[in-house]
C-alpha cells in the first residue's frame, strides 16, 4: 500500500511514516506544494495525507488537481485549522476524510484503513480474521458465521482496533476517539472500559478467540 504524505513539518511527517510503515504501508513524502504536484502527476497512491496549509500553496489546489486528473487516490485532509468551511469544501471537492491537528496516529491509521478499504473493496468490503468476519459496509459481524449484535460504539471500537492491529492503544486515546471533542471534559474514562468489556464479552460468547488483549493495565492491543 502506497501512501503520500504531503506535509511541510518534517517531524510530523516522520512520525506518521514511522507509525504507518510498521503496517504494510510504504510512505513517500512531499514537503512542498510543487513536490506534491509532481508526485501526484507521476504516481498513483492508495491514500494521500494532505496538509492544506503548505508554505507555497493551498492544499485545496492539489485536491482540485487530483479530481481534474480523475485520480482515484483516497485523500485525507490534515489541517491545523478547525474551520468548518474548509472541511465542507474539502469533502465536496472529493476528500474522503478530514482530520484536525493534533490527532493520534492510531486515529489516523484507522481512518486510512477505512478509506483504503472503501476505495478498493467497494461493494464487498469484508474483513476476515480467522473465525471473525466484519462487513464494513453493512456494519455487521459474523463469528463462525453466526451474527453477533454490536452497538454502534462497540462496532466503532472494533474497527479502530482492526485499523491498528498489534498496536498499543491507550485508554485516553480511545476515550478521545469515542467522545470526540469533549473527552477531557469527562472526569473519568470508565465508559471506555465499559464498552471494551461488552465487546470482549460478546465476542467470546460467540466463540471468538480473544484477540483483544489488555496491556499495561489500561492499554489495549488487537492481535492478529
Amino acid at each position, binding site marked *: 500500500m502506497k501512501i503520500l504524505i504531503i506535509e511541510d*513539518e518534517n*517531524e*510530523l511527517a516522520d*512520525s*506518521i511514516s*514511522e*507509525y504507518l510503515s*510498521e503496517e504494510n504501508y510504504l510512505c513517500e513524502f512531499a514537503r512542498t506544494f510543487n513536490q506534491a504536484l509532481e508526485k501526484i502527476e507521476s504516481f498513483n497512491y492508495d491514500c494521500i495525507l494532505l496538509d492544506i496549509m503548505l508554505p507555497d500553496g493551498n492544499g485545496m489546489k492539489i485536491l482540485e488537481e487530483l479530481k481534474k486528473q480523475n485520480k482515484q487516490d483516497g485523500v485525507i485532509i490534515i489541517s*491545523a*485549522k*478547525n*474551520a*468548518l468551511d474548509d472541511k465542507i469544501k474539502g469533502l465536496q471537492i472529493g476528500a474522503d476524510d478530514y482530520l484536525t*491537528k*493534533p*490527532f*493520534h*496516529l*492510531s486515529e489516523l491509521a484507522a481512518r486510512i484503513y477505512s478509506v483504503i478499504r472503501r476505495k478498493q473493496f467497494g461493494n464487498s468490503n469484508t474483513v476476515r480474521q480467522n473465525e471473525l468476519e466484519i462487513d464494513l459496509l453493512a456494519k455487521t459481524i459474523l463469528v463462525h458465521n453466526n451474527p453477533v449484535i454490536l452497538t454502534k460504539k462497540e462496532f466503532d471500537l472494533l474497527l479502530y482496533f482492526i485499523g491498528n492491529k498489534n*498496536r*498499543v*492503544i*491507550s*485508554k*485516553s*486515546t480511545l476515550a*478521545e476517539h469515542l467522545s470526540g*471533542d*469533549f*473527552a*477531557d*471534559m*469527562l*472526569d*473519568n474514562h*470508565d*465508559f471506555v472500559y*465499559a464498552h471494551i468489556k461488552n465487546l470482549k464479552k460478546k465476542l467470546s460468547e460467540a466463540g471468538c478467540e480473544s484477540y483483544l488483549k489488555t*496491556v*499495561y*493495565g*489500561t*492499554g489495549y492491543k488487537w492481535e492478529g
Partner: protein
Amino acid sequence: MNKLLNKSLKSFTIYALIVLAASVPAYLYLVDSIWLRELDEHNEIVADRMENELNKLQLSETELNQSIVLWNKIQPGTNLQKTNLDIGRKDSTYTVLRKNPYVTHEDIDRFRGLLRVIEINGENYLLTVETNVEETEETVVAIAVLTFLFFLIMVVGFLILNRRLSVKLWQPFKNTLAKLKAFNLNSQSNISFEKSTILEFEELNVALNKLIEHTVSVYKSQKEFTENASHELQTPLAIIKNKLDILLQKEALTDRQYQIIEDINKALTRVSRINKNLLLLAKIENHQFDDSETINLSELTTECIEQLQEHFSNKDLNLKSSIDEDCVVTGNSILIEILINNLLLNSIRHNLLKGTVGVKLSKSGFIISNSGRAALEQEELFKRFKTASDESSGSGLGLAIVEQICKRHQWKINYEFRQDTHTFKISF
C-alpha cells in the same frame, strides 16, 4: 438628568431677573427726578408769569387785595400772601402729599411746590405754586409691571431660542453621540464622524477618532495574537502527541512508563482543548460564523442528550427533560451545539453522584439545572480561566464560550443557585 442648555438657561434667567429687578429703583429714581425737575421749572414759569402780569395790571391797592383774595380762592394751585421776607430770598421747593377733597374715595395726591417772594406794587408777597405730580408708588408699579413684562418676553425668547439651538447647535454632537452608541468594538469598523464647522465638536471628533482607532487596533492585534498563537501551537502539540503514540509502541515498556505516557497524554488533551477553545472564542469574536441558519433546537437538544446518555448513566444521574416540540431559532448550528454540549457536560461533571439534571426547552428559553452543594460565584462564572469551583479539570473556557455564544445570538443567560440546584437559564 438635566440638559446642558437648560442649565445655562436657568442661570441666564436668574441673571436677567436680578438685572431687571435692580433696574426698577434706578428707573424710578430717574423718572421721579426728571418729573420733579420739570415741575420745578413749570412752577418757576408760573411764578414769573404771575409776577409780571400782576405788576403790568397797575391795580390799586384795594383792587389788588380783592383780586388776591379772589385768586387765592379759585386757584388752589397758587397762593399769594403778604410777607415780611426779603425780596432777595432764595426760592425754596417742597413736596407734599394731600388728600383730594373732590372725590369720595380715599385718594392722596402728591404735589410739588415752589415758594418765592415777589414784589407787587412795591409790596412783598410770598407766592406758593403747587403742581400735581405722579405719586412714587404709582410710578413704581408702572415700571415694575413693564419690567416684568419685558422679563417674560425675555424668558419666552430664551425658551424658544434654547429649543432651536439645542436642535441645531447640538446636532453634530448628537450625531457623534449616536455613532458612539452604535459602535461595537467587536465589529472592528472605524467610525467616520461627520465634519463639523464648530471648533469644539471638531476637536471632540478628532480626539474620539484617535481613541477609537487606537482601541480597535489594540483589540485587533490582541485577537490576532490569540488566533495566531493557537494556530502555531497546533503543530508542536501534534508532534508531541504523535511521538507519544510511537513511544507507546516500543517493546518492553514498564507499567510505570506506560502510566507516565498516559498522564502526558491526558495533559496534552487538555492543552489541545484549551487551545481549540481559545481559537473558538477568537473566531466567535471575529464573527467567523454564519449565524443565519434556522435550527430546530428541539431535535438538536434531544440528539445532544442521546450522545451523552452513557455519561448520565455512568454517574447514576436522574435526567428530567421536558423538551417542547419544534422550538426553532436562528443562529449557527455548530455554535449552538457547542453551547448545549458545554452546558450538558457541565451539568454532568459538576453533579453529585446520583444527582439530578433538569433540561427544559420551550419557545422562550432553555433551562438546564443540576444538583450541587454550594453556589458558584456569579461574577467569576463566565470569565475566562476563572474556575468558580475547585473540583475542576476543565479548560476553564466552557462557560466563557457559552456566554460568548449567547451574546452572539443576543440571548440572555442567567445563573441561579437555589435549593441545592444550579440553574442556567437562557432566554431567547
